[in-house]
């Protein structure tokens, strides 16, 4: 028979836990009054930097859920030097991401050759109506303000982290 029977020791453990919670507060985070800091490179919502997008359709094609809708048209921009040929430029009409379908895999961000899509750690964009989860071009552009700077590489690396175009 041990000195303090396990039966009593068990009661002691739970009682100590009560005292600890009363004195020190709970271990849990009291959402929505307190919020936890998201980890670096956390994936929340996807932001669009419209100037970089050339409507190449790569993100739309690679998305496993087909949740990106892109429409664009070609216009002519003035030539770069006087007397040259007018250049054709792609202009975005519509760039929608449907967050009711998105599975946050990040393939679109990874595959974009012009770095027009960015991850942000924002997660509080739930809506009462599912249709409102379709974020259009303007809203995706507004998310750019919440994109954090890229994490630096390890000390002694030759490459420096790129800057986020806000």
């Amino acid at each position, binding site marked *: 028979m041990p000195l303090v029977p396990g039966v009593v020791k068990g009661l002691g453990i*739970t009682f100590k836990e*009560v005292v600890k*919670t009363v004195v020190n507060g709970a271990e*849990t985070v*009291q959402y929505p009054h307190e919020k936890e800091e998201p980890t670096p490179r956390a994936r929340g919502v996807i932001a669009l930097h419209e100037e970089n997008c050339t409507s190449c359709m790569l993100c739309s094609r690679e998305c496993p859920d087909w949740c990106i809708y892109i429409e664009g048209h070609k216009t002519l921009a003035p030539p770069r030097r006087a007397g040259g040929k007018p250049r054709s430029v792609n202009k975005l009409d519509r760039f929608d991401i449907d967050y009711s379908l998105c599975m946050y895999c990040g393939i679109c961000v990874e595959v974009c050759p012009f770095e027009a899509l960015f991850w942000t750690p924002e997660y509080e964009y739930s809506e009462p109506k599912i249709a409102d989860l379709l974020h259009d071009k303007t809203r995706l552009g507004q998310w750019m303000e919440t994109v954090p700077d890229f994490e630096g590489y390890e000390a002694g690396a030759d490459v420096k982290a790129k800057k986020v175009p806000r």
Partner: protein
Amino acid sequence: MLFASILDAWWLQTIAKSGAVLAVVLLPAGLTVYLYLFKMVSFMQSRLGPMEAGPYGSLQLLAELGKSLQKEDIFPARADRNVFAMAPYVVLTSTFLLAVVVPFGPNALFTDLDTGVFLALAVSSISVIGILMAGWASASKYSLLGGLRAAGQLIAYELPMVLAVVGVVIQAGTLNLQQIVYAQINGEIFGWGALGLPFILTQFVGFLIFMIAVQAELTQVPFDMPIAESELVSGYMTEYSGMRFLMFFIGEFATAAIFAFLASVLFLGGWSIPPFITELVGLEVDSAWFNVIGPLVMVTKMLALTFVIYWVRFTYPRFREDQLQKFAWKVLIPIALVNITITGILKVAF
């Protein structure tokens, strides 16, 4: 009741007592559910529990009530409709009947029965029928298993409960609960009457057995094989939803509170405070002030005992069915019988 002197009409008394019984059953249930089920278990798990509904989550039970009221009343397709519907009421009947015999003060009681203890123990067995009805009528394998386990367990633990109380009855010399309280007030510890004689001092074995048997009668962990949440979903309560489930739920907590009231009457001196304090303040031991102080004292003692019941519930894993039965038949009943024998011998000798 205090009203009896003012209004002698029996129908008025009955209405007043019915209202008071509702209060005695529902208010302690609500209080213990909030304090222990919402808050104490949360603190034991390093979290805060409900905090949004009312200040510090005090209105959470009200929110649960509202939620249950608007739920669909589901009957399983093959369930026996009448038995299924009646089962929660049978369990609640035993709870309300149990509350009728508990005294809260010299005159603050519902009925002064000469066989109060006998009625209390007999009536607490009615809930077994309700649980069996629920288990069988649910037409579900989880409920049936829960009901069968409940049958074995509840019947097995009736005996230690009764035998533990017999020791108190022998020592007090009466089955009348009010007289048991007076016996504790007027008793003396080796001639020293300042504390009275709360029977827990001499019947500590009986007290321990009674509390263990109460834990088993309420199907609380570590005796919750009939519910066994990780195995049987909810045991006999699995197929119940909404208001019917809430009736089982409130019945369970109300019964726990009322058993705690009973235990404080039988072992802790009921509605009385130690006589030397009453003499200090200059009151008679059975003065009318105790009709007001008595209920408060009872609630304090009830909260202390339910604290222990739920502390044990939230700490331990559960017994296996055979360990449970062995504990009742081979350990508790022999110890209770020995307790009765020794009490009887000492009562006659001294």
